[in-house]
């Protein structure tokens, strides 16, 4: 089925123009990433020159990558490890809490505060500015002696991702029929069992999507990590910022580190391609 909206049926010449627009927009979108990839294979001297074609215009080297994985190996691997641990665990916790709360809001009726009010209150937690809680978090983490500790970063990332997780899981569960769980409950199945053995497996695609989305947000987060994970608990985004030195920005270094930090979330986003828009629009647009 061909859907044509907006500008009626198109002549071949129109289709060609559309294709050119698409290509130009894709080129503009890809350019910074491609340029970073090219620069990451240049020597420091070459990295400050506008040369594009390897072998012809510049001699490709592994200088930047060797610097990251040989010279400053410990720092890079530590940041990578922290990034992986923080994103993996914090998203797992916010998924578990989010799935439980989302399910309860989709299936049970709350009387005193209506389900919708609770859900919207939780969603609104997503919107306040992260800087507004920096000062109390700092004081809390200082008192708990958790500054520069990945536990602090994880606690904060769970808070950041939980509202969206609840909201989207509610959205998923509300779309699924409750019949099977009801039947099971009537047959004497416990509520916990109905949730874990019936509802969760059906909602598996939603669980994966919410987990991956939280993972991406946590992996990409910068502000909280600079404050609660400035050194030992540093993640890749903070390490990227570290390529700005007193001498200026090391182009080769910022390129290789950025490529390293960009690859995992971009690959995950590709798997999630259809859900990404749904997640980022808080479920307002479903593809």
């Amino acid at each position, binding site marked *: 089925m*061909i*859907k*044509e*909206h*907006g*500008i*009626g049926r*198109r002549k071949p010449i129109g289709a060609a123009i559309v*294709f050119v627009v*698409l290509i130009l*927009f894709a080129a*503009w*979108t890809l350019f910074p990433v491609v340029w*970073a990839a090219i*620069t990451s294979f240049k020597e420091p001297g070459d990295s*400050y020159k*506008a040369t594009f074609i390897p072998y012809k215009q510049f001699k490709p080297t592994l200088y930047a990558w060797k610097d990251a994985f040989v010279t400053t190996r410990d720092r890079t691997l530590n940041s990578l490890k922290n990034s992986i641990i923080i994103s993996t665990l914090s998203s797992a916790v916010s998924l578990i*809490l989010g799935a*439980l*709360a989302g399910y*309860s809001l*989709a299936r*049970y*009726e709350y009387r005193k505060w209506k*389900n*919708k009010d*609770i859900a*919207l209150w*939780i*969603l609104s*937690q997503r*919107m*306040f500015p*992260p*800087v*507004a*809680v*920096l*000062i*109390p978090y*700092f*004081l809390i983490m200082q008192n708990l002696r958790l500054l520069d500790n990945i536990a602090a970063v994880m606690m*904060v990332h769970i*808070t950041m991702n*939980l509202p969206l997780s609840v909201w989207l899981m*509610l959205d998923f569960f*509300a779309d699924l029929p*409750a019949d099977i769980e009801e039947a099971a*409950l009537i047959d004497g199945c416990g*509520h916990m069992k109905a949730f874990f053995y019936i509802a969760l497996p059906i909602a598996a695609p939603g669980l994966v999507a919410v987990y991956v989305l939280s993972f991406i947000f946590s992996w990409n987060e*910068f502000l909280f990590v600079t404050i609660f994970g400035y050194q030992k608990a540093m993640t*890749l985004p903070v390490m990227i910022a570290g390529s700005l030195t007193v001498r200026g*920005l090391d182009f080769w270094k910022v390129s290789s580190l950025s490529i390293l930090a960009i690859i995992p979330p971009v690959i995950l*986003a*590709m798997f999630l*391609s259809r859900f990404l828009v749904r997640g*980022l*629009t808080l479920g*307002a*647009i479903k593809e």
Partner: protein
Amino acid sequence: MAGTFLSNKGVKWAFLLPALAYLMLMAILPLVWTLSLSFTQWDANTMPKPKWVGLGNFEYFLLKDKRFAHDLRFTAMYVGISVSAELAIGLVLASLLSQKFKGKNFFRVVYLIPMACPPIAVAFLWRMMLHPDIGVINSILQAVGIGKVKWTTSPKVAPFTLIMVDVWEWTPFMFLALLAAFQALPEELYQAASVDGANGFHMFTRLTLPLITPVIVTISLIRAIDAFKLFELTFGITGGGPGSSTESLSYYVYLIGMKWFKLGRGSAVSWIFLVILLVFAMLLVSRFKSRELTVKAR
């Protein structure tokens, strides 16, 4: 409403409470604490304890502090121009491309890249490319005869540099969201309009636009709330400069609280910021409220 689902009170609270408790503890309590600190002066570098100053901090920011007024104006301008530009470009692209075409999935994947990238990586990569002397963009502009642009060194240009990067980062999101919205439109309407002899332009202005206006409002609000929190691009591309021409509200709060350790002032400005965002948040939440979102169990 099935009785089975309603009967078990213990279970329903056991499911909901962990998330609620976590948010109370980690989101509400800190905000209340910030509010109580906002009535104090506490320069943590020199003072061991906060000192009560009443509304002094609020008076300072709202009436005296020119820097706050500037940062608020800059942030508002940044949000306004970025979101409008992203919406306009996204709308043009989506209306051009709403029919099926070859390689759609390829393009979709390409356009997902900017929004999946860590914002701080985006900021530093653009800082590198926009370097006034040795950046690749000025080299290209010079080669084609346009000459060097003072992307990050002129206080007149730098705010628009940040807007350009925001447009790079988020136009694809607007485009993909609008594309999805276009494809959800009822096709029969268009067939009927076409039979009635409506041309493409009329169909777009009389049919498509009114139908997708709710979507446009929702995604623009989402984007505006996000853009208002501008931090990484300021931090990575300009550091707030030149002067304080690209200093966002988030960046100012960060400086006051975490660089100068004026915890009382920082708390007050946090709350002012929070209240400003709350207005947008209420608008957005009210949109979700009117959407049908009922309990599914029958």
